[in-house]
């Protein structure tokens, strides 16, 4: 993961102020579900650019494959057959990190610098700082991060922060053959979405709309949906996502509890040490606890 320190907006478990000298525009990826044909070119491009290969699995009686997000599959297509008013629809949604403006994963993360939010909106995991606690999984309202069984670290879509940092569109955008995945300034993406929504309304989708949920401050991956009133139809896309109250509690007024929880993590790490051997990051957690205690 590229580290553009000038563009960091916030880091997990860090209180040092962010840099101010440079401003970047807010970007977004727009997934136009109405133009997506579920070809999985985005899945392939993601695997190829990031040089990760998931296991060759099995067919489970559906078109989806791999069946779920994993440490090695950062995006998957979810196929849903829906019948409404005697009309069949095959809704195909590209699932992956939404890059929330108010990222639950980052809020929940106790490891300093393991999760970064850039000023352009990308939320990125820095695995070298990840302690594998899984809090990001709990903190995510979209159930996106996955912990690797190989190295116990969390993984998810980086929105190709390395490509975006050098003015390249994410690999999935580049590979999409139908232009169903668009990328650019968030404002431009909203304008583009408005045109697509108008077109869908003309075609009889009265409830077409943009999915940019405000419960998480808006997202930097947005969807154009034919049925924006029923996002749940699209393989359970949450209608009103928000950060779990547990995380709010954790970062909010319950600092002592937080510390206690961190101590718990430390204890867990100790257990981890006993059962699995030394793990260098546990020292950092202890430092973090000391620091928090000192405040």
């Amino acid at each position, binding site marked *: 993961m590229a580290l553009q320190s000038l563009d960091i907006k916030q880091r997990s478990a860090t209180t040092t102020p962010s840099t101010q000298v440079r401003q970047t525009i807010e970007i977004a990826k727009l997934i136009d579900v*109405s*133009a*997506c*044909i*579920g*070809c*999985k*070119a985005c*899945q*392939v491009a993601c*695997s*190829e650019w990031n040089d990760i*290969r*998931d*296991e*060759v*699995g*099995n*067919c*489970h*009686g*559906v*078109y989806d*494959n*791999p069946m779920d997000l994993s440490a090695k599959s950062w995006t998957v297509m979810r196929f849903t*057959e829906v*019948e409404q008013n005697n009309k*069949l*629809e*095959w*809704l*195909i949604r590209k699932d992956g990190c939404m890059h929330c403006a108010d990222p639950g994963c980052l809020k929940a993360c106790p490891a300093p610098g393991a999760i970064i939010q850039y000023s352009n909106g990308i939320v990125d995991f820095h695995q070298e700082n990840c302690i594998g606690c899984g809090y990001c999984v709990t903190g995510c309202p979209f159930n996106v991060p996955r912990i690797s069984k190989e190295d116990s670290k969390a993984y998810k879509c980086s929105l190709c922060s390395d490509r975006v940092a050098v003015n390249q569109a994410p690999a999935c955008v580049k590979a999409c*053959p*139908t*232009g*169903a995945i668009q990328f650019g300034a968030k404002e431009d993406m909203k304008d583009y979405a408005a045109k*697509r929504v108008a*077109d869908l309304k*003309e*075609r009889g989708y009265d409830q077409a709309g943009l999915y940019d949920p405000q419960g998480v401050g808006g997202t930097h991956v947005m969807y154009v949906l034919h049925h924006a009133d029923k996002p749940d139809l699209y393989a359970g896309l949450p209608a009103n996502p928000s950060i779990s109250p547990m995380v709010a509690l954790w970062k909010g007024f319950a600092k002592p509890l937080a510390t206690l929880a961190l101590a718990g993590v430390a204890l867990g790490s100790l257990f981890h040490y006993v059962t699995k051997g030394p793990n260098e990051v546990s020292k950092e957690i202890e430092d973090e606890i000391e620091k928090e205690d000192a405040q």
Partner: protein
Amino acid sequence: MTNHWVDIKNADLIFVMGGNPAEAHPCGFKWAIEAKKNRKAKLVVVDPRFNRTASVADYYAPIRPGSDIAFLGGVINYLLTNDKIHHDYVKAYTNASFLIDDGFGFEDGIFTGYNDEKRSYDKATWKYQLGEDGFAKVDETLQNPRCAFQMLKAHYSRYTPEMVTKVCGTPKDAFLKVCEYIASTAAPDKTMTNLYALGWTEHSVGSQNIRSMAIIQLLLGNMGMAGGGINALRGHANVQGITDFALYAQNLPGYLAPPTDAEPDLTTFLDKKTPKMLRPGQMNYGQNLSKWYVSLHKAWWGDAAHKDNGFAYDFMPKLSGASDVLSIFNAMYEGKVNGFLCQGFNPLASVANKKKVSDALSKLKYMVVMDPLATDTSEFWKPHGEFNEVDPAKIPTEVFRLPTTLFAETSGSFTNSGRVIQWRWKAADGPGDAKDDTEIMATLFLKLKEMYAKDGGAYSEPIQKLTWAYRIPNKPSPEELMMEFNGKALADVTDPKDPTKVLVKAGDQLPSFAMLRDDGSTTCGNWIYCGVWSPAGNLSARRDNSDPSGLGQTLNWGFAWPVNRRILYNRASADLSGKPWDAKRTMLKWLGDKWGGNDVPDMRPDAAPDQNVMPFIMTGEGVGRLFSLGLMNEGPFPEHYEPFETPLDNNPMHPKNPKATSNPAARVYKGDMEAFGKAKDFPYVATTYRLTEHFHYWTKQSKINAIMQPEQFVEIGEELAKEKGIVAGDKVKVRSNRGFIKAVAVVTKRIKALDVDGKKVHTVGIPIHYGFKGATKPGFITNTLTPFVGDANTQTPEYKAFLVNIEKA
């Protein structure tokens, strides 16, 4: 394609039937999405399955596999009875007004001239009435009952919406809705593009499926128009190219008919094959056959081809019967073939009836497999558990594997579906001992030539005299080959109107097939490609994407055959006076002294509109054919016939005539008729297809494709699944009369049971792609199930409609 990929963006209606471009052509399909986004175009899909294309369509209608002609015949009837045709176009640019021979007729599913023992027609009456001047008689009022228009009307009057529903199982309201969409493009300034692929060709009536759409497009006036046309989506980056270069052995390069023993000399051959002018003043461009054919002989045999020996006419092998893939494997099966050179081909997986193919390969003395990969075919002799149950001890065939380079490991050109030839550059060296196909073929040829020279042999002259002027004889370069088939002038080529004017100097590359001569002064290995390597160089390597018209014509990108023309029949995009039907999508217009516009004119450049030179220049009459004369083997009008394995007891259109149940002119080999299953044993209709995650039988060898779609599955509807106690994810066994496969069941709402002729018909969808060699989970070869019968014209096997049974494994 009569049009090209980018042109799809110019359509008002994208009608997809017999194809699934979102699945099989996702990159080209972007132009359909562009048309939707930018032109408010509508996308309509008719298919047995609600597929990936249907998932983004405005309207979808289901259809029973193998009943497309009934549906399209219904559309023709709808257009005619509701008067939704482009009148001026039909009258001027089609043979609607042409009178048909009085002897021609049609009775209960059979056209005049049928011989049921030979399963073929005597086509003597399938022709126009000719006047004393030798030209076809016409009735411009279109009222004569013998004119093609009235006969078309009468023929399709039987295809009522009720009949369509009865035969196809398509609900009547859905059929009528599709008709309304199609009919909306009868307006002169509206166009429909038709996208089809193997869903139409892979039937025993495949060619007539496409003919049906050709009739519809002519009635609507959509041929020659931007955003119109009949567009075959080819299944491989270069399958158009290989077809142009005689993939079908019954053709010579450039679709020239090959000579047979019935034509003992060049004069007889040319006399027989050169089309006659059927209306006065037409271009009848086929009359130039002698120039193309003689130039081909000059390219192949150089100085050894001269006037005195009919340009080495005797050197050309004479076609001695069928040479399509089914006939070759049938001959092999009958023990009539010793050796098989299998180049870039995996027939065990891709030809119908795997058992028959495997038995056929087992009767060879030797097989040479040239391929970049270890294919299923190269291991047909090796047991792979239940996926390939064979006994190597009983297979004497010796197999040699010659590893070849892959397309990215050699330079050359691809010709895409839109006939655009694009040069590509080598990206990497091949691994290990891999050699280019050309090097292997050249080495083999030189060795044979040497052996003939040393040991003699019957009639070796055509081999000894074959032109072989490559710099490195065993490594002809792609550049040398393209220059060679483009052709050059052997002597100065002069202007026929002014012999003092030299058009091409001796030794120069030819800029166009208009320069070809039949006096031996030009060479050309494939007339339709002439101009691709002109005096200006390799035009297929051009990469200028400027598009001044905004219509996506990009005339300086690559080179389209013929003569860089992007839309065929483009003269028909303008009315008789030369004014475009739709000025916003001008292809061609008359500029007062010549034709101009946004494409290379498909017309003599100086043919003023008042000369009445009609747009379909390759026909002797200059117009598009509603009545196809004797070109099709099963009749001048498409008629619905059942697939050879039908779920019905008879053809609902001809219930009392068993001869008209299935295509009466389709060839069926001994033993194959018996191998057809009956509905009482195999009650479900099966259809095979491709998945977007894979490419034929190649990508099962690639890990990343294997991850995306790892294991063979079959798709069934919820109702059938319930009847059979099958749930999604269960292992099922699918049987046909030729064998069985096992796969995972995908249970879906996207395949519905249809009510056909009072009977409930379920469809089982079966993707191809899997086999016993590869990175995917080992699987069965889908073509274990498919029947060994093909289309009556092309012999393309009927992969898309046959019968199976299904049970939990």
